[in-house]
């Protein structure tokens, strides 16, 4: 099963790569994604009692945490793939062979990350996701996208290289304390109490910074606005929803080892600090942001901050963070895709040229606005539930300062983000020199509606299976607290 989950997308990638027709190739994406989704659901919701999905003598193991990430990844990818044909149909001028194939490889690598219980293997997969997603950012093939790709590739590779060093430190920590050195996750957890603290300490920092770079935490976030700003909306969604989640998973794994070891307090301090810092940086750079795609990138930085903050606060907030991972990913889908549509409709992503989207492209405009309200934590949308859970946990555990700063930064972000969003959505449509042909259509609208629907659903009702998944995952993270 595990192999199937990883290899099927690779196979699809090969097929996609082989298929000559530029027009029909995109349709393989939804098809493949659907199958993958079904496979995932089978793997995740297999009846209790069966042995867990595993492979390579437990290098691959689908644990509670992995289940959440994996199912989320495939849902996200599926929804994006629904958008792909409509989008690529607008870009028939561009060859999309590499693009589509890469998407599949990315999917497979993300699955690998979600499954792998071996830090080394996880590192390999993570770096691989970076490499394969780079060309997708370069899809538009102009000066700006080259620059974006270069920065993305270089900074992430360097960051992840540090993560590798960190993994080595971890292994050495076990070696130092006379254990047979390993990078396997479960033995590390068991050995954690006896790991040499200094090495564990250094290892955590390296891994946190390394994978944090990939996740886009401040101050390692610098590549994000460029990459998200230049990549097509769909790639933005997969980066902001998918890859970041993988990086977050990696950090969670490391955090688990620290929690089992002596470094829990230290790790949580750092997470709270970096989380708040990321939110602050995002807030600062969102203010007066003219480029609404870059603004979305900063919003992503902010929410990565919220995720680690949630873990740092601990307790109920862990549940909140995991829920927020899903909510944020889905809402980002709404935002990036509708922003992409608006970008197409105006031929610009600067608020100087864009206004009155609600009139020019009513559906995308409305969705963009709704997505904004959702991501800033207004009921009845999903992010409200998760963010409120985190606040509640912070206050409940007496961490008033963290909770207060969290709320304060949410307010600042809202103001910064809202100014830009409303400038885009409201008002009258400016005179365009050569009005773009783009208009809302089912192909480019329906998938976003699906995203929005899910966001709304998660706001008013959390299905029991998801609830159990999250509870298990949170419990799995909180063992030994």
């Amino acid at each position, binding site marked *: 099963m595990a192999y199937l989950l990883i290899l099927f997308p690779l196979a699809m990638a090969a097929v996609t790569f082989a298929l000559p027709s530029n027009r029909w190739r995109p349709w393989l994406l939804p098809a493949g994604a659907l199958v993958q989704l079904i496979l995932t659901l089978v793997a995740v919701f297999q009846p209790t009692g069966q042995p867990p999905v595993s492979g390579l003598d437990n290098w691959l193991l689908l644990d509670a945490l992995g289940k959440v990430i994996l199912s989320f990844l495939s849902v996200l990818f599926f929804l994006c793939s629904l958008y792909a044909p409509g989008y690529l149909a607008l870009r028939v001028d561009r060859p999309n062979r590499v693009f589509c194939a890469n998407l599949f490889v990315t999917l497979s690598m993300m699955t690998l990350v979600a499954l792998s219980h071996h830090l080394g293997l996880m590192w390999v997969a993570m770096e691989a996701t970076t490499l394969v997603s780079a060309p997708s950012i370069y899809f538009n093939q102009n000066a700006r996208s080259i620059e974006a790709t270069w920065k993305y590739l270089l*900074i992430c590779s360097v960051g992840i290289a540090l993560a590798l060093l960190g993994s080595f430190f971890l292994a050495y920590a076990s070696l130092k304390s006379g254990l047979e050195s390993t990078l396997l996750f479960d033995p590390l957890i068991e050995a954690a109490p006896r790991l040499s603290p200094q090495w564990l*300490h250094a290892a955590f920092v390296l891994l946190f910074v390394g994978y944090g770079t990939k996740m886009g935490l401040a101050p390692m976030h610098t590549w994000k606005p460029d990459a998200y700003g230049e990549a097509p909306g769909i790639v933005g969604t997969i980066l902001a929803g998918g890859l970041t989640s993988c990086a977050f998973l990696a950090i969670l794994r490391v955090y688990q080892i620290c929690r089992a070891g002596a470094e829990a307090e230290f790790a949580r301090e750092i997470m709270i600090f970096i989380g708040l810092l990321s939110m602050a940086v995002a807030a600062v*750079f969102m203010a007066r942001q003219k480029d609404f795609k870059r603004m979305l990138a900063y919003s992503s930085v902010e929410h990565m901050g919220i995720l680690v903050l949630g873990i740092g606060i601990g307790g109920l907030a862990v549940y909140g963070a995991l829920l927020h991972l899903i909510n944020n990913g889905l809402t980002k889908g709404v935002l990036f895709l509708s922003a992409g549509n608006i970008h197409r409709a105006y031929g610009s992503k600067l608020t100087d040229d864009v206004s009155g989207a609600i009139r020019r492209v009513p559906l995308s405009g409305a969705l963009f606005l709704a997505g904004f309200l959702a991501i800033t934590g*207004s*009921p009845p949308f999903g992010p409200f539930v998760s963010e409120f859970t985190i*606040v509640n946990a912070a206050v*409940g555990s007496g961490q008033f300062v963290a909770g207060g700063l969290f709320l304060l930064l949410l307010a600042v972000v809202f103001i*910064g983000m*809202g100014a830009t969003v409303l400038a885009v959505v409201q008002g009258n449509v400016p005179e365009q020199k050569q009005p773009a042909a783009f208009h809302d259509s089912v192909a480019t609208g329906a998938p976003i509606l699906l995203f929005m629907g899910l966001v709304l659903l998660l706001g008013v009702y959390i299905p029991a299976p998801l609830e159990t998944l999250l509870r298990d995952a949170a419990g799995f993270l909180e063992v030994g607290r």
Partner: protein
Amino acid sequence: MNEWLLIAGVVLTALSGVPGYLTRYPGPVTQWVTTLIAVSGSTLGLLALCMFWTMGEGQSVVLPWPIPGAEFAVALDGLAALFLLPVFLVSLVGSVYGLAYWKESEHPDSGRKLRLFYGILTAGMGLLVIARNSILFLFGWEGMALSAFFLVTAEDGKQEAREAGWVYLVATHIATLCLFGLFAILHAASGSFALAPLAWDKVSPRTATLAFTLTLLGFGIKAGIMPLHVWLPGSHAVAPTHVSAILSGVIIKMGIYGLVRITSLIPHPPVEWGEIILALGVASGILGVVFAIGQHDLKRLLAYHSIENIGIIVIGLGLALVGRSLGRSGWIILGLGGSLLHVWNHAFFKSLLFLSAGSVVHATHTREIDHLGGLAKRMPVTAACFLIGSVAICGLPPLNGFVSEFLIYLGLFGTLVSGDGPSYAGAAFAAPALALIGALAIACFAKAYGAVFLGTARTHHADHANEAPWAMLAPLLVLVAACVVIGLTPVVVVPALARAISAWAPELRDVEAELVALAPLKWVSVMSLALLTALAAAGFLLRYRLRTGAVEHGPTWACGYVAPTPRMQYTSSSFAQSLVNLFGRVLRPKTLRPPTLALFPQKSEFQSKVSDVVLDEAALPVFRLAGYLFSRFRVFQQGSVQSYLLYLFIALIALLLWR
């Protein structure tokens, strides 16, 4: 039973706009359908209220709700019922009014949106009032807040609408975040999200203070208490008028509801809370009306009066809180009773005023008071309604405004005379303040009514205005009726008030009897009726005398000047000038007066403007400064990949050296 009726009503109103929004059927049909559904929804709600007041408490509804900590808990108690009446009544008349005021044909691009969110707005308020779980409350709250935003920016093509809407959105979101914090604290204190009385003694004073501050901020912003009112005037001015009516008649009351509900959860509040709220009430009352006097925009003027009336309501609440801390049931009953009754009264007469003002705007296409005049002749019914509204809002007998202020006065004087037990003279000073507020209100409405409806038309628009259609007049009459009934027979509201008060302070025994004992409402109605009959008689006498005696008609005596023009009338701004100068320190009026240079001065002009001090001289500068400071940080993101890698490295080293 009542609860289910209410839920049905809420759902109906929420969905009222949907069919109209989805179907693109041309013409007025969608608009009629929408209004029909909305009206029936509100009617259901009102029905439920009647049943509640006649038959009594129903069974509260509690359903599981798969969201962490949340449950769908709904209950209708005295407080909720009291706040629900304006919700349903005002939105009902408002949606009828909208039929003619915001015709689909006249507003093709905003009409559907407007009706959709109007329904959601009503439903949101209905939900938040009956919610007994803070998460459910937040859903209703935000449903209200956001739809209100879309209503304020109904005409988002206009710059001023966008700006006002933006200010509103920021304010309301900050309020919501405060509520997040508040409910989190309450959860920490009580261990559940249920909005039920707290074991307050277990809460540390620090936490309690924090909770109180958040309550004050979160709900105070929504209620528009000075100085948290910054969003209020702008949005009231630019919103479509039947929206302004519900904004100022009902939505800001939701802030009051929050204050009342949360304070009801706390059995023994520190006396300082009451003091603070009392002081805030006095401040908003006086400043609100003072700012109102300075306005040239009819709707802005009314908006500032909302701040004033919120002030009066808050004074009552503060008195009640003080009473609760000191265990003086009389103060609780009179203070809270007056403030809650004023919630009703203000909802009625303020909507009445806004809707009549809307008819004026609709007929003359301007909100500038000094461009109007003489409308009493062209729009007699509207003029009469506005006059009644003015008398009511100034708290003058024989209308409803007087009754509520009467109760509050009694309570305030009571703090002096109640011999036995702890007295609290500080509160008494609110009485003269209230008197000042009343007198200023009289000045302000003399100005407004005089300049708009009396004298002669100052502009062409005003000269060619026509009386509003019946769809716009009927709602006015309903509200007039409400004002008159409460004014003449205040006894009818006693049961509702009593229930609300005992819901707020369960420790009190047979509130109704005590309220009747404390407040001679019978006398009030006797005197009001006597006043009316006396007026009628005297009026009749004068008429009779005039009919018998010789009466000739001529121009107004201009003290010998032979060619007076409408432009020579005393304008509203000159009417207000002396008061504006009197409070110049607060109002900071900006005047533009070009100096007269030549011996024979040429055509010149004089302008004066009173803008919102808090917004323009405190809030906005702060935000601008923050924006500027933030933009200074951009140097760190100048695109050089080397420096980016450097940050990465620095972060690494810093974290390594962390501990």
